[in-house]
């Protein structure tokens, strides 16, 4: 199942890793460096799923999810939060913002693929 995924993370290493995890699975991967960048990239694409970090400059993951959900046509796009945070209050904030799932870094590439296939498939 080939999916188009937008990955938003301020760490280049993470973006590289996500790309490396998803490209072999035949995914199309778009990347962005923070929430604002993510929204701009999102403008030109129709992703099947979005992966986002929480701690980012300019616009963090919560703000980004909020902004995506505010777009009528993006309300159903699954958004996975990919972060090192595991505090319950963080998860709860992300969920309130409209996140679909939560993945804790470091991640296993094959599981990330599966998770995406699961939420977007």
């Amino acid at each position, binding site marked *: 199942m*080939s*999916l*188009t995924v937008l990955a938003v993370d*301020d*760490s*280049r*290493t*993470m*973006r*590289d*890793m996500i790309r*490396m995890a998803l490209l072999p699975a035949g995914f*199309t*991967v*778009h*990347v*962005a*460096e923070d929430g604002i*960048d993510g929204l701009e*990239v999102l403008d*030109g*694409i*129709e992703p*099947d799923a979005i992966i986002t970090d929480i*701690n*980012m*400059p300019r616009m963090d993951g919560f703000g980004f999810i909020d902004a995506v*959900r505010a777009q*009528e*046509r993006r*309300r*159903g*796009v*699954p*958004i996975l939060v990919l*972060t*090192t945070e*595991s505090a319950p209050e963080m*998860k709860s904030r992300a*969920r309130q913002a*409209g*996140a*679909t*799932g*939560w*993945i*804790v*870094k*470091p*991640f*296993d590439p*094959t*599981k*990330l693929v*599966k*998770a995406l296939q*699961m*939420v*977007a*498939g």
Partner: protein
Amino acid sequence: MTDHNDPMAEIKASFFIECEELLESLQDGLQEMDEGSEDPETINVVFRAVHSIKGGAGAFGLEELVRFAHRYETVLDEVRAHRLDADSEAHKLFFAAADHLSDLVRASRDDLPMPVAESDRLLTSLEALLGDLPDEEVRPEDFEPLGVTLSLDLPDLSDMEAADGTGETDHDAPAEAAGDGWIIRFKPEAELFDTGNEPQMLIRNLCALGEATVTCDLSDLPSLDRLAPETPYLCWTISLSTTSDEGELREVFEFVDGLCELSIRRAGAAPLEAAGQARTLEIAPPPATPAAVPAPEAAPPQSAPALTDAAPPPVEDGADTPARKSKETGAKSVVRVDLERIERLVNLVGELVINQAMLSQSLGEAGLSPHSDAMNGLEEFQRLTRDIQDSVMMIRAQPVKSLFQRMSRIVRESSAAVRKDVRLVTEGESTEVDKTVIERLADPLTHMIRNSVDHGLESPDSRRAAGKPPQGTVRLTAAHRSGRVVIEVSDDGGGIDRKKVHQVAISKGLVPPDLPLSDNEIDNLLFLPGFSTASQVSSLSGRGVGMDVVKTSIQSLGGRISIQSERGRGTTFSISLPLTLAVLDGMVVNVAGETLVLPLNVVVETLSLGPDDVQMLRPGAHVVRVRGGFVPLYDLGVMLGYRPARDTHQGAIVLLISLDDGNRAALVIDAIQDQRQVVIKGLDDSFYRAPGIAAATILGDGQIALILDPADIIAAEGPLRGAELALTQGV
């Protein structure tokens, strides 16, 4: 793994580069915090830097780095949340932790042993800051970098895919029909669909935990004419036999908590709640394919609006593909290039410059009209060559910021070693310098900074006694000045004790006792090999490798170093460097039949000598009159040993050059040949280092010419005596 084709190794390498950038912003942020920044973004930047290092480190299994970064980050998070008020002592600790983090990054990169004991020491101090906070707010130990590689709160569907042999699972595979029975009732609310969730997925995930029977309750479903498209009408009851506990079942619904009606209870005597026109689907865990699994699609009205929105439109791989591709490369297009490739390009451009010079020369000699096509073309060629060269040099140019940041660590460490309170102020961090210059500046600069902290600044007590603030300041600045880069290290210490320096130099036999020296000359004694005035040899600056080594390193970069010092007020060391080590705007001159190149930027003026312009102070020492003042005159041919001293300089050409200390000197040459860019070819170590000879170059006709450093030649000539100096002052 050092396999070059290993993409993971590549990402790891890029991770370490990113770490350097993150460490840089960490330093910057801490600096701002320490300077009292109230901007919440400052602490955010600091936090994110450590956080991102931790994240990447986790991906590569760099446990010690993760461990330290995590606990450091935890403390920073308390500051971020305003639960911890960091004072300047705390800031010191943060700096030390940042330094240590950078050590850990480098040790991880170079596979060196981890300084674990130092980590522990710092962590203990860091966590002591949290002393008064309630325990539950700080959980430094609960982060497991490598244990569970993926804790997907959406439960794993791996069980379902185990059939094809690819599935792996974090939890035990469901025991065959074993475990407890559970009854789960799940009724989504409209908001559930706004979070990208859908019942199908949740039910499928639940089913993956064991053996399930799913029942869909259609009783609320109205007739088609009364159907509200955005209202969910369906309710599912899942009867599940699983080894998972209630917590794991609830985890499946973690992200839809509050977005659905959910009840989970043990299957007991109580039968399923009556389900009107229930449809029952048999779910067998392993072989289920997503399409075959649950019921939602069977109930279009409920999920239609949300899911239609949600459903990804068919992916057309046609028209929009190029646009996607371009986005995929990221917003900023940055290319990482191996330095070797750039070096090669720089060398080629050097060859191009030489080639162009040769071409100009032969076309000039061919006597072509300046308006001929060939000459016009040549002019264009020259312009392009220069542009290419500038552009190539720009590739190698880097801000001195990273270098300066390293120095702030040196200040912290050295001031702690000698128990002085020192503040480093930096200016001009964005000044760009050739990368090779930056690299080779690190050692001399380190030495100079240590020197300032150790010898330049007084002890806090002496400072107080002198009416100064006990905290000393070391200032590190960079700026572009007339085609060169000037880097200054200054302190607000006691200044150079010239009497003492002079005495030491005399006692060590470095200068004859009877030679009167100007202040500037005494200051320059510090650069003599083996000179040291510290009454005690400190562990910091040591002895032996003194300022002479610094001077030599700077000279090898084509630079010069000078001192200005004022008693009681402090000392400034200025390093003046060429922007690049590759090319030079030069003046090609003839002296005694030799062709030499002088850096154009030191030449202030050219004069032709008249009969009365030169006056002799004593045999071998002349001055030249320049608009009412006098400038010491040096005959290049004599200084370089090309010819004996002459009685008259009449008719000779004189280059008025500016020296770093603000003085001027006049150099006698025979003729000016040309002004042009020359490619600097370093003289390797097999050549004896002659004072004043900086490098060599190849001229247009293929001839090799030496590039001179006029200030160095004049310094080698020895100082003018007091009276002579007095005469030349004010010019």
